[in-house]
């Protein structure tokens, strides 16, 4: 019998079987393989079997049954292979994902990987995803990051970009972190701001997913009584998936994913795949958040350490200065009485001596020198006084105003213009009133001494963070750097600075208060002195 199909021929040519495609040429000579792969599904073979039936052969009734069973088994095998292949891909993807998630401590990297995995085609292929995280006080779930296109045009662009790259998930996540994380945060700002759910609202669908520890597939969202209409309106989609993120029984957050552009239905299989992914993401997010918090605390601790070291150094310095101060104060007081007696009697002699008395010039010298020594003593004593502050809350504007009024006459005598610029409603400051008054006065006097007549001095008060700033500036000559540096040493010989001790005393007072004293050039010439006074009550450094 001539058969239509080629199953009887050991070798065939291309013309004899139209179903052998390019690349399958080996089948021309491989009979068994050809029969199993091609002939059993070939219409010609089915015709041959019909003819066999007609021939009355006893096997003709069995053969179609065997063929049908074989084809069914083959289809099942193909379906299983497909399933296994898909699961293998999924496993590989999850493995790749978990490797990254397990090793990363960087919150941004974890976010990038997680959100790329949800939205990338080779991942779960959702169009868009939002991450809501529990806030530090565990009061609210708050929108933290959104990823995905806002419209079809943008989606098209993203898919084209993805087609062009052949990156691994990690590579894509890295690119995302570098180029898009920031812009994505901004892009969905309006949506993220509206995504805020109190963790105590147990009826809310997001909290229900957290409580059930299982993903929830939300369908018909706009008419679903279980869904907060506000959430449906913000997302603008009818179908979305809620994936709870729970790590060690702690509610980390929720991922809400949807297909806002393609509107492809979300299947139960999608949901199951994402469920496997939820735990490593939650764990990594928690770990990265904790790590970030740890880093914050560490940087606070480092800053506190630096501050402590500075304070310790300052205390050591102050202890030395206090000792110096006590000694100086004791010496100065024991000098003051004899000095007063010398000067006092000299004045008395001068007053009672004859105008032509030859000794008059000598007595005048004694009077002048004694006075000079008394002035030096007063400065030394004011310096040692400065080492014993009496702190309280004071109105700095009242202080500045009072010194300004007191100095006004002296400024006028020198032809110097005084300007007072005070910010109203300033908070009270924690200072030693007498000492800060001394500083303001000393800085004005210092400016007066170094500047030419007809100059100008400005007094300004303002608020700066937790401080009130008192600023004294002049349009006199700029202060040379070496003099600025030498100001850390008390009673340094700085003739250019007038009598010399005002500025070091100011520095000593402000340092002792733990306050900042800044000296800088004034644009256009002159010097600016800034004292930063705290508005919060602090601990006194010394009794």
């Amino acid at each position: 019998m001539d058969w239509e199909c080629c199953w009887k021929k050991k070798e065939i040519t291309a013309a004899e079987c139209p179903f052998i495609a390019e690349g399958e040429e080996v089948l021309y000579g491989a009979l068994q393989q050809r029969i199993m792969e091609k002939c059993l599904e070939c219409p010609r073979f089915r015709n041959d079997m019909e003819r066999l039936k007609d021939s009355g052969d006893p096997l003709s009734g069995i053969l179609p049954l065997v063929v049908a069973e074989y084809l069914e088994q083959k289809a099942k095998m193909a379906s299983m292979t497909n399933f296994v292949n898909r699961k293998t891909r999924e496993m590989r993807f999850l493995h790749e994902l978990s490797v990254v998630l397990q090793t990363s401590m960087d919150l941004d990297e974890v976010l990038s990987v997680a959100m790329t995995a949800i939205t990338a085609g080779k991942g779960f292929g959702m169009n868009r995803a939002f991450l809501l995280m529990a806030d530090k006080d565990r009061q609210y779930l708050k929108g933290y990051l959104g990823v995905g296109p806002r419209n079809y045009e943008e989606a098209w662009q993203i898919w084209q970009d993805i087609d062009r790259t052949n990156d691994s998930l990690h590579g894509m996540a890295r690119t995302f972190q570098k180029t898009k994380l920031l812009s994505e945060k901004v892009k969905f700002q309006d949506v993220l701001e509206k995504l805020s759910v109190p963790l105590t609202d147990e009826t809310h669908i997001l909290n229900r997913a957290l409580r059930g520890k299982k993903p929830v597939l939300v369908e018909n969202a706009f008419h679903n009584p279980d869904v907060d209409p506000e959430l449906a309106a913000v997302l603008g989609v009818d179908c979305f998936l809620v994936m709870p993120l729970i790590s060690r029984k702690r509610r980390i957050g929720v991922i809400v994913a949807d297909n806002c552009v393609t509107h492809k239905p979300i299947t139960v299989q999608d949901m199951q795949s994402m469920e496997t992914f939820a735990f490593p993401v939650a764990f990594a997010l928690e770990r990265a958040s904790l790590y970030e918090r740890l880093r914050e605390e560490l940087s606070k601790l480092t800053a506190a350490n630096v501050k402590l070291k500075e304070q310790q150094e300052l205390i050591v310095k102050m202890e030395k200065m206090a000792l110096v101060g006590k000694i100086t104060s004791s010496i100065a007081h024991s000098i003051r009485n004899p000095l007063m007696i010398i000067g006092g009697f000299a004045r008395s002699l001068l007053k009672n001596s004859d105008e032509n008395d030859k000794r008059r010039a000598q007595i005048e010298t004694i009077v002048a020198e004694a006075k000079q020594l008394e002035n030096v003593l007063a400065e030394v004593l004011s310096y040692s006084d400065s080492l014993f502050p009496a702190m309280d809350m004071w109105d700095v504007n009242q202080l500045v105003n009072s010194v300004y009024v007191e100095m006004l006459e002296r400024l006028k005598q020198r032809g110097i213009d005084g300007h007072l610029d005070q910010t109203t409603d300033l908070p009270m400051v924690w200072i030693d009133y007498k000492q800060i008054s001394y500083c303001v006065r000393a800085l004005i006097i210092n400016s007066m001494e170094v500047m030419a007549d007809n100059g100008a001095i400005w007094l300004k008060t303002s608020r700066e963070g937790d401080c009130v700033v008192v600023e004294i500036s002049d349009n006199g000559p700029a202060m040379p750097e070496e003099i600025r540096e030498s100001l850390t040493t008390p009673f340094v010989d700085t003739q250019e600075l007038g009598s010399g001790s005002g500025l070091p005393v100011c520095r000593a007072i402000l340092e002792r208060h733990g306050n900042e004293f800044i000296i800088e050039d004034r644009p256009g010439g002159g010097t600016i002195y800034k004292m930063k006074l705290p508005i919060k009550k602090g601990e006194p450094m010394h009794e």
Partner: protein
Amino acid sequence: MSKLLVVDDEANIRLLYSQELTDEGYEVITAATAAEAVEQLKTHEVDLVVLDIKLKNESGIELLQQIVKERHDLPVILSSAFSLYKDDFSAWLADAYVVKSSDLQELKDEIRRVLEKKGRLKAG
């Protein structure tokens, strides 16, 4: 003539104050200790006391408190080498506070001001 009592443990200061204040037209008596001062106050009709805060082994502030307690109408001017006492509340009991200086003008001005205020400025 107003009578002043100068209390200071330093003899030369007592001498200087006596000369200068006598030249100003006051009658001046002096005391070196708190006990002497109390004695002087008993025997003399004093119009004003110039009191040093640090007397030898004694506190001028305590004497001030005693004077204020017993003779509340008697004005006292504190004179001291320590400017710190200006901020001591107990020193505020005094009518004035003068830091010691070879130039006695401030002391003289304060004496005149306080005496005038208290109606105790008497012409010599």
